């Protein structure tokens, strides 16, 4: 399936709207054919601008975008052959579902019987057979969303762009649509570029995720790598939950470093620190720290429980640990963890490998 490594290629793309601020800075991004790539980032990070440049509604200020080896900056949007799902679906309200789907086929002068087959196929793909004669206004949000997806796929584009397509749906519907879109992608093998600010959506659906901040791609990697091995403290903060310790490297040797905090010293995994004396932020996922640790762990410290929040399957425990009063622990609910009471002193431990010493914030 993944025949071309750089099916979509952003080559040193800059974008500025006002000539003063760059919203996209020196973007370098390759997307392979058949891949599902998500651009994830807070609002204003430039991810939607990138998508609009790819669709042809914005022009890069500098640099070039290649689609299947061809530079596309001078090709108008309607000749790019890219399917797109918009944030508010952008279904044509005066046309039926059938006419909405027929629009891209009609402008391509596809004969009616062939077009009908494609429309049937697209509607069955999103399980909306029998809705062809409805107007968009008569459909629920989730159904409109599915029509928008079907419309973006009906003319067999090689690339589909999705701009926060699930933003307007409620939580349950959003989750089921995530799986639905993921399955459609898997079954037809189209390349998808997806924009969202919802990290769980990105983690669920994508082959690779590009985390945007401040006009730059902070990290481009698979969901698990993004979560387990963030390369800088922005990514660590943005994806999932994160406990941090700010300190200074006091020693670095053999793939481990010592980080001196204000009142203690911890062992960490040096990721972006190189030399002694550098400032650093150590990042540790809550589920990687354990209470009542085994002696194999090389970081064991005592803390006081400040808050206990019951979450059903697990309990969140806030602990004052090494001067950080926001240290979060996730403890699975089991009968062995009965000593978690407000005000108790407990021992916490983690492996230095999981404590990533990243750039200082």
């Amino acid at each position, binding site marked *: 399936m993944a025949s071309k490594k750089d099916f979509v290629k952003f080559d040193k793309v800059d974008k500025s709207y006002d000539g003063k601020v760059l919203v996209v800075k020196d973007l370098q991004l390759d997307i392979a054919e058949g891949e599902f790539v998500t651009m994830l980032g807070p609002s204003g990070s430039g991810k939607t601008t990138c998508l609009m440049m790819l669709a042809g509604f914005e022009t890069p200020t500098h640099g070039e975008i290649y689609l299947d080896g061809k530079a596309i900056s001078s090709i108008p949007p*309607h000749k790019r052959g890219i399917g*797109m799902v918009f*944030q508010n679906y*952008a279904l*044509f309200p005066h046309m039926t579902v059938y006419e909405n789907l027929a*629009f891209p086929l009609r402008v391509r002068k596809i004969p009616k019987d062939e077009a009908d087959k494609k429309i049937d196929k697209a509607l069955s793909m999103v399980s909306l057979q029998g809705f062809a004669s409805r107007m968009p206004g008569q459909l629920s949000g989730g159904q409109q969303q599915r029509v928008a997806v079907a*419309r973006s796929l009906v003319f067999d584009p090689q690339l589909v762009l999705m701009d926060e397509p699930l933003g307007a749906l409620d939580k349950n519907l959003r989750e089921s649509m995530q799986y639905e879109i993921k399955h459609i992608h898997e079954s037809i093998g189209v390349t998808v570029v997806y924009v969202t600010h919802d990290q769980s959506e990105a983690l669920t659906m994508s082959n690779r995720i590009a985390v945007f901040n401040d006009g730059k791609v902070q990290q481009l990697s698979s969901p698990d790598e993004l979560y387990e091995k963030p390369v800088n403290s922005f990514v660590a903060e943005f994806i999932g939950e994160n406990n941090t310790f700010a300190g200074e490297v006091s020693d670095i040797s053999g793939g481990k470093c010592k980080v001196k905090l204000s009142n203690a010293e911890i062992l960490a995994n040096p990721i972006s620190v190189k030399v002694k004396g550098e400032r650093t932020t150590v990042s540790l996922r809550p589920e990687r720290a354990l209470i009542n640790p085994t002696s194999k762990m090389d970081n064991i410290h005592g803390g006081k429980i400040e808050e206990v929040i019951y979450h059903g399957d697990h309990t969140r425990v806030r602990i004052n640990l090494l001067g950080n009063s926001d240290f979060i622990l996730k403890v699975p609910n089991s009968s062995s963890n009965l000593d978690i009471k407000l005000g108790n002193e407990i021992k916490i431990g983690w492996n230095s490998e999981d404590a990533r010493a990243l750039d200082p914030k």
Partner: protein
Amino acid sequence: MSSETKQILTTDGIPLEVSLKKAEKKNKIKAFLLVAPLLFFLIITYVFPIGDMLFRSVDDKMVTQMLPKTFKAMESWDGQELPEEEVFAAFHEDFIKLVEDKREGKLSTQLNYTKNGFKSIIKKLRRASKKFEEGNYKEQIMSVHKRWADVEYWRAIQRRAPEFTGQKYLKGMDMYVNEEGKIVSVEEDRRIHRVLWLRTLEIAFFVTVFCFLMAYPIAHLLATLPMKYSNLLMICVLLPFWTSLLVRTASWMILLQQQGIVNDFFVGIGLVADDNRPEMMYNKTGSYVAMTQILLPFMVLPLYSVMKTISPSLMRAGKSLGGTPFVAFWKVYFPLTIPGIGAGCLLVFILAIGYYITPALVGGASGTLISNQIAFHMKSTLDWSFASAMGLMLLSGVLVIYWLYNKIVGIDNIKLG
């Protein structure tokens, strides 16, 4: 199931429907009191005058009341030959009474509407009647003027007997009831109203078209430009609203006259020769230009309010799905603006069809409309019933257009804002 719902009682045993009505009654009264001032205002300033107008346009009591005995005597007259002595005697009796009240002038005006030539013979009759002797009035009246011996003129009097008449409406269409009682058109060279009706429709139609062609791009710009520019443009669109209609029309007179700015400019760039300046005023061109400018905001505003609601992502979707910018516009954007187009066109057309001041000032002879004719009859000839009749014809024309529009486009599709 409905019988079950009927039996629902409130906690104190009163049927639910009764207590609901009771609770809502107060609100209904409040609502009515709120609209009452407007309702009375409308009745006094709108319903009553229109009713009065409708009545006036068919009311023909004046002559009926001036010649009561004559018409009574005429009841047995077959209208073939000159009436009998008793009709003449009755007419003389009515006429003497009118002369005493000094109302014979009104009679002559009224009868002259029906048939030309009554004015002079009534004057002559008044003078002669002072010397009339008792008896044989037929001979005496006929000797005053030969027209009094013409059966046509007596038939003309008889035609004014009914209290109500539709002849003003026929006159508005350049038609009349001839001596045989048939509805026929007036001679070709005396038809003025039909031309005016057609011209009114023509000018209203083309003003609507011009307004639409100009307003569409403006409204689109207004709806899509960033706020700071669109606000400025909006002020430019609304500026005419804050200027007096008369001032605007007068400024068009300054611009369009033969020694005016526009002509000076054309001469200046060598488009026309100095001694051959085109007439752009006191003709249809003047009406078109001035009315289009004045009515433009009525087209821009409904269009703008509709375009404002069309999401820009729809056009983008159209393009991303492979439509050229034109196809995306024509298949996606344009159909969505139809409610605004309908509202704007209806508004401009209806306003244009009754337009008065502007065509009166810049229209000249070939650019005046039916409303100018109505005003002429209101102010100059004082034939109010004819003016009322034409006013009502105009009103019913507008209602017909409204009805047609509802049939074709559907009134629910209108969006004024």
